[in-house]
């Protein structure tokens, strides 16, 4: 239909007026199509598919049977390991998320206007672009569970402890150390966004505010900088949520899978276990849907909180 409309219009009008909408629209659709098709196949479609599969007992071998909300019932009523994973993920996300977010904001704020900013930024940002798997080698050196470990060595030498702490085997230390590693690795994207956002803040506003009687830099931050940076704060928050709820490889490469007493078991670890080790796709999809709903609701909440 769109093609007919172009053909129906005399060529002179094209040069006099703007390009007819129909031609423009056709190009738009053609240009948008490659992204949109892949986006539907691998992101939008799968969310819907996950919801459908989660209502069945699909296991790759037998034909899927509709089981209603049975998977969800099992998940929340009978699966104690899932409850541990849920608790761990929440503890993890609620500590590592805000801590990484705040640290990267404070760092961006402090760096704004300092000299050698790019150099400091590189040293601060670089950890977040390293591979969690590769860096586990380093963390295992720092937190090695024997006397060879840098931290154990230091603690023993300074007389704080007498025998080495089993950092990656002791259920009480696995999660805290993983959180520390995650914070170290997660200060990236948010930091860049905040740095760019701070550069955008109109500097005249600070002068105006100084005349109006704002004194400290903290007042400046609260009354001028933060409100102006809402869009960047939101972008940072959304990235942080997706990152901290999806934690998996850091813990696996630091403490193995499954972790002792499931101390470092997360929702994604549970999902991986059921989907790609036990091949219970229906049940695993229910886990995926729970993860989806959780992150989506929290993301929506932040969109509401930081709306313009």
């Amino acid at each position, binding site marked *: 239909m769109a093609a007919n409309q172009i053909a129906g219009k005399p060529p002179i009008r094209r040069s006099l007026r703007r390009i007819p909408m129909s031609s423009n629209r056709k190009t738009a659709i053609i240009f948008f199509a490659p992204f949109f098709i892949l986006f539907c196949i691998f992101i939008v479609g799968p969310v819907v598919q996950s919801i459908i599969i989660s209502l069945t007992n699909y296991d790759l071998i037998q034909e899927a049977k509709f089981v209603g909300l049975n998977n969800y019932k099992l998940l929340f009523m009978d699966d104690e390991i899932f409850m541990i994973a849920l608790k761990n993920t929440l503890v993890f996300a609620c500590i590592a998320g805000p801590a990484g977010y705040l640290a990267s904001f404070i760092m961006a704020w402090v760096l704004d206007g300092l000299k050698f900013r790019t150099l400091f930024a590189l040293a601060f940002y*670089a950890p977040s672009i*390293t591979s969690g798997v590769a860096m586990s*080698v*380093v963390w295992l050196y720092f937190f090695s569970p024997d006397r060879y470990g840098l931290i154990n060595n230091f603690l023993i030498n300074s007389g704080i402890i007498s025998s080495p702490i089993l950092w990656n085997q002791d259920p009480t230390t696995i999660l805290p150390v993983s959180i520390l590693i995650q914070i170290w690795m997660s200060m990236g994207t948010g930091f860049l966004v905040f740095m760019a956002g701070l550069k955008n803040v109109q500097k005249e506003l600070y002068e105006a505010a100084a005349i109006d009687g704002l004194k400290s830099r903290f007042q400046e931050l609260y009354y001028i900088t933060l409100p102006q940076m809402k869009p*960047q704060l939101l972008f940072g928050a959304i990235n942080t949520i997706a990152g901290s709820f999806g934690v998996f490889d850091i813990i696996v490469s630091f403490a193995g899978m499954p972790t002792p007493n499931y101390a470092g078991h997360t929702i994604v670890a549970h999902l991986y276990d059921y*989907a790609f080790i036990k091949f219970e796709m229906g049940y695993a999809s229910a886990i995926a849907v729970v*993860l989806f709903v959780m992150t989506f609701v929290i993301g929506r909440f932040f969109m509401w909180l930081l709306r313009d």
Partner: protein
Amino acid sequence: MRDGIDYRQKGIILIMVKTGIHIRFGRKQITISSKRVWLYMFVLILVTFTAMPLVYVVVTAFKPLDELLRFPPRFFVERPTTRNFGDLVLAVGSSSVPFLRYFLNSVYVAVVTVFLTVIVSALGAYAMTKLDLPFRSALFSLIIAAMMFPSQVTQIPNYLTVNGLGLVNTTWALIIPKIAVAFNFFLMKQFCEQLPNALLEAARIDGAGESRIFRSIVFPFLKPAWASLIVFSFVSNWNDYFGPLVYITSQAKKTLPLAIQSIAEGGSIARAGAMAAATFLMTMPTVIIYTVMQRRVIETMAHSGIK
């Protein structure tokens, strides 16, 4: 007060308690006021802390075996050597796949994915911001919504799709699902909005077709944005662990994260050197790419807010 001090020499650093720090490189002079010295100290300490594990990766890669295994452990290298890299080439693990193969697999997957995601996102972003794309606000909300959940949510249906297409255990399984990424599209779209309409109008009046406009005006204009996508997409694909873990079964097609994990699990002491070298080779490409592109990335991020 400062006029009395002669710091015309090259690269001189003067630390004055009252006037602050003056650093001079040739003609350039940098002065840090004494009030701010404490701020710099704070930042320096923090940055030392965050950069320490990375510095450790670099120094460890050049440690000879006896230094790697020394007790008590030492942080820095004393007698640097490149032997570990030689050991790494020889360390083939349980099967007969040389390390170089994993490295090239990773490079191939990351480069192809980055190339495709840049093109596809740029085309889509242009269509959404500057052309008359129907339902654009609804589509944009959908894309923002897709940024909110971790990618593992869609892993099961994606596995079934990739399996259905017969792509399991091929490198395409690692590439195709990673092309249309909401985060990449979002950055590209926000940056594309800065493109002046007048420029496009002028080109259209001159009779340029849309594909020509895209090639000669839009794509060059988006340079900072695609430079950023090169960084983000390369980093996430280079480091991707979950994807190859799920899709790749044959040793010859594995990428670096899996290879490193299997070297680590081998756990033999003789491998410590190879492991240190592997970690170095796994870590450095992302850091180098980011360093080269840093300025453009920050330029792009200035437009990244969600309004």
